[in-house]
Each structure stands twice: as C-alpha cells, then as structure tokens.
C-alpha cells in the first residue's frame, strides 16, 4: 500500500512508530499529484514544493500534526498565497492575512499542498463554474466532481491530499463528498470561524472537513472548531474532543427518516441505496421511524432567495479599487465599478447577483426576501421539533450520482435542483455529515447524510462511524480514473 492511500490517523500511527518520515509522506503526495493532477485538475495553485521545504526543516515533531499535509479550498485566505475563489475577479489576489482556520492549522504545524478548485465564489454544484478549469471526478473522468468544493473532494478521492478543508453554504462540502465517495462534514453554523473565508452567503456559510474516513473528519473538526472574536457570528460553546464520539454503537439510537426526501426528484438507485443503509442501522440496533418534514419542500426556494440576497450584498465590495480585477476601459470612477464587475464576474455569479438584487429591491423585498426569512423560521422550527423525537435524521445527500460534464450546464434551474437535499440543513443551521453508502449500476458513489441537532456533532459522528466500520466502503470500492 502506498503512503498516499492512508488516512491521516494511519499516517500518524506510522509516524509515531517511526515506520515512516514526514518527508516520505510529502514526497508520496507530490508524486501522486504529478501523476494524477493532469487527469483530475483539482488544484488552482500548487504549494507542494514549499510544503516539502517546510517539512525538510523539521527534525523532530513538536506537535502531533506538525508536517502533515492538507489541501485548502481556494476561498480561504492563506497569507502570501493566491486566493482566487476560482474567479477572474481575484485571479491575482494575494491574501494579506490568514483565515482563522489557517491560523489554527499553522499552530499545529500542518502544511498546505495547495489551493483547490471550486465553482466561482462557491456558487454551483459541479465546479464547472470555475473561471480557470473544469475538475473531473476520479471515479469517472467524464463526470463532474460535484461542487462547489469539487477540487477538494476530488483531490481527497484521488489521494492527492490526505484531507482538505471545504466550505458549505447549501451543500458545497457534502454534495461533492457524496459524488466523489468521500466523507464531508458541515458543522453547526457558528462552530467554525468564518474569518478569512471569502463570503458567499454569510448566514449560511460554514467551513468543514473533507476526509477519507469519519475518524479523520472528527480529528480535523477538533483542529478547526472554536470561538473566534474576529467572527461575531461564531458561537461561544465549550471546546469538545470529537474523537471521543468514535464509538461503534448505535443501539437505541432514534433515527428519523423524512419521507419527503425519498420522493419526486430523487434518483431511484440513490433512494434504494440510502434505504438499504437505513435497514443496516436497524439491524445494528437503531430505532428507525419514518416521519414527515413538509417544510423541506419549501427550503430550496427559501435558500436561493436568502443566499442570493446575501451574495448580492457581499459581492458589492468587488469594485476594482482596493483589490481584485480592475477594467482597462474607464473614464469615470463609476465606469471602474461597473466594467470591473461586468468583466471580472462569471455568468453564474452575475445571475445570482441579479436575483439577489431583485429580491431585495423596492417593491419585491416583502414578497420575496421577507417572506423567505419567515419561512426560514418555520424550517428551523420543524427541524427543532423533529430533533425532540430523533437523535439523527438520515436522507440522501444528493438527488443524483455524478453526471457528465456539460450535461446540465445550460440550465441554471436544473442545476439548482441538485441542492434539493442539502440546503434545508444550512437554512436550519444544523450539522450534517455525508458518508458513502454504495455505488450505482455504473459504479459511481452514492452518499447519505446524517443530520443532527445544533452543536451535537458527536451523535452524527458516532452514527457515521458505526456504519462505516460495519460496511468498510473504502476497502471495497476505489476510484478507477476511467474515461
């Protein structure tokens, strides 16, 4: 077995036993990147040589994670490194400071192998909206990796990084994790600081781990969670050790299955695979009950109104003055604003700014934005009441497995439907972890998500870990890189 195939906890064990060195690990990933990046196209910026340089200066590990490599989605600021959001607008932007999550990783001594491709400004579900390149799914290179953290999920699946940080506004960690057969965790809103994460929709954005297994997910969550005074929406909750939740036991666990998630719009093979996984939970001693979550039907519309409204406001800062792309065609200051934005943003970003501006504009504010905020209250309430009865809610992560690159890119609304299962979780602000639960008839991975109550990541980690240990997806299925 090659080093790049191992999980981080396996690498740490071998390091502790002096079976391997940090340099061997980093070199193994660099070789792997040299071999596979031409097919997968996951990276926007590679910093693998710098990572190797840093690792070679380490004589003895001072902290447990010193010298361990990681990949970072390209919307998190790393000081001195390009942070592009996969947009022409930020093509030459060099971050002047570190995001809080990067500070935390630096304190532990982790080294970044590079910045990973994404849909421009995290808006999309296929990574086709990147201004720079299309990332391919390692399980079938003709297919999309999902999005917007498609670079991160495909890099982990292709073993080009041992783990990665993604961000999730409406499913952007979980959906690509599902399509690439890896583990993606969106923490409770507020658990991880958003300082230095380039904003898409501030009341929904959350950073989280994309990993090969659940144990690594818990370990990485430990490293990034915590209150931050630089993010006023960061929650002041007690620090926890999530690895304590890695317990193989779901006896008596109450699982709710919302029937709305298995109806119209959900691919049959996906539905069957998730239902089989739920049966497995029953066999392992969990108590499973179907229930109705009718408000889920309204979550997608609510999400697009709120997310685009917030995006239109957040992206107002890109005006070509202090940073970012500046047009060459201008006479007045107003020309700089308008032409820089028109030339610097891609089509999908402009579509969402237009929608967001529309729903916030005079005459439409009450009918769309205010109404959506009220529906959001009801969505939160229904999730809260569901969690009075259940410890975990299980649903498909994505309505479909990975589809062909270009297949849906001409129809924005059709692509928005891919977010059907993931967005309610962001709107409600609860945590959710996506883990693989099978493959379809074409061998493409299927994911299910385990949704928990606010700040109860432990329960979904325990439930995910138990299933993973029982089924060993990783040992049975591997990406094939076929064309």
């Amino acid at each position, binding site marked *: 077995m090659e080093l790049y195939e191992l999980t981080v906890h396996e690498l740490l064990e071998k390091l502790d036993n002096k079976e391997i060195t940090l340099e061997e690990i980093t070199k193994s990933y660099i070789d792997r990147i040299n071999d596979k990046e031409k097919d997968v196209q996951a990276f926007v910026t590679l910093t693998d040589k710098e990572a190797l340089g840093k690792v070679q200066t380490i004589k003895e590990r001072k902290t447990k994670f010193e010298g361990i490599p990681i990949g970072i989605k390209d919307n998190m600021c790393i000081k001195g490194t390009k942070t592009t959001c996969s947009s022409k607008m930020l093509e030459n932007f060099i971050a*002047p400071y570190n995001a809080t999550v990067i500070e935390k990783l630096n304190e532990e001594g982790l080294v970044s192998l590079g910045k990973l491709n994404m849909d421009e400004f995290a808006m999309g579900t296929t990574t086709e909206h990147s201004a720079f390149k299309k990332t391919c799914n390692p399980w079938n290179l003709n297919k999309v990796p999902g999005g917007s953290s498609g670079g991160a999920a495909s890099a982990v699946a292709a073993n080009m990084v041992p783990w990665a940080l993604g961000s999730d506004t409406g499913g952007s960690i979980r959906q690509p994790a599902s399509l690439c057969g890896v583990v993606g965790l969106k923490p409770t809103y507020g658990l991880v600081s958003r300082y230095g994460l380039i904003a898409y929709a501030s009341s929904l954005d959350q950073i989280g781990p994309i990993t090969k297994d659940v144990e690594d997910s818990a370990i990485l969550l430990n490293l990034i969670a915590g209150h931050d005074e630089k993010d006023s929406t960061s929650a002041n909750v007690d620090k926890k050790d999530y690895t304590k939740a890695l317990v193989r036991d779901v006896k008596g666990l109450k699982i709710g299955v919302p029937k709305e998630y298995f109806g119209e719009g959900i691919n049959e093979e996906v539905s069957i695979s998730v239902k089989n996984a739920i049966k497995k939970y029953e066999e392992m001693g969990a108590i499973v009950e179907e229930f109705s979550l009718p408000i889920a039907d309204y979550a997608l519309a609510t999400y697009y109104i709120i997310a685009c409204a917030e995006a*239109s406001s957040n992206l107002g800062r890109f005006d070509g003055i202090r940073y970012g792309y500046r047009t060459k065609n201008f006479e*007045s200051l107003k020309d700089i604003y308008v032409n820089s934005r028109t030339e610097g943003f891609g089509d999908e970003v402009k579509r969402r700014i237009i929608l967001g501006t529309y729903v916030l504009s005079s005459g439409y504010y009450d009918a769309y934005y205010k109404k959506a905020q009220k529906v959001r209250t009801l969505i939160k309430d229904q999730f809260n009441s569901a969690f009075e009865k259940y410890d975990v809610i299980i649903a498909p992560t994505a309505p479909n497995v990975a589809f062909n690159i270009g297949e849906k890119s001409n129809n924005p609304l059709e692509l928005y439907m891919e977010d059907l299962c993931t967005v309610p979780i962001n709107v409600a602000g609860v945590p959710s972890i996506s883990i693989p639960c099978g493959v379809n008839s074409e061998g493409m991975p299927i994911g299910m998500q385990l949704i928990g109550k606010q700040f109860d990541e432990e329960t979904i980690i325990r439930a995910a870990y138990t299933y993973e240990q029982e089924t060993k997806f990783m040992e049975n299925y591997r990406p094939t890189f076929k064309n």
Partner: protein
Amino acid sequence: MAVSKEEILHIAKLADLKIEENEIDEYAKNLEDILNFAQIINSVDTENVKESIGTLNNVNVFRKDEVKEFEDKEALLQNATEQEDGMFRIPKVI
C-alpha cells in the same frame, strides 16, 4: 412572473453590472424561471411568524472599541491595481 427588459436593466444598474442588449432575454428568462419556482413559498402560511436573519440566537455581540494596527499594510496595498504613497489611486471624481 414576467420580467421586462426595463426591469432587468434597472436591476443591473442597482447591482453595478452592465447587461448588453443581446444578453437581456437570457437574464430575463433565467430570472423568471427562478422567480416562478420561488412562488412556492407563497403557499406557506406565515401569519404571526417572525423573520429569521440567521440560525443562532445571539444578539448584540459586543467587543471593546479598540484600535488594532494591521501588521502588514504593504500586503494590503499590493493587491491594488494602482497605488501611490500608501493610498489607493482612483480617477478624478470632481
């Protein structure tokens, strides 16, 4: 929900974006599609329901009003297309 050419141009102006004549129809159609889809929320009874601006209940998060110097001003300025004497340069406005 029909969106007129004038409306699209008005919204683009508010957003500081330029939409060319030959792009108007497509932007209008995309906006109409999503607005038609979004109509579904009107069937939800929200009488006496308060709006949510987020998911956590923390309000009025205060901190001390202290001046903190950003440690690396050079790093901030290097991202500007035009700068002069530690300031961002823009065209004449009056």
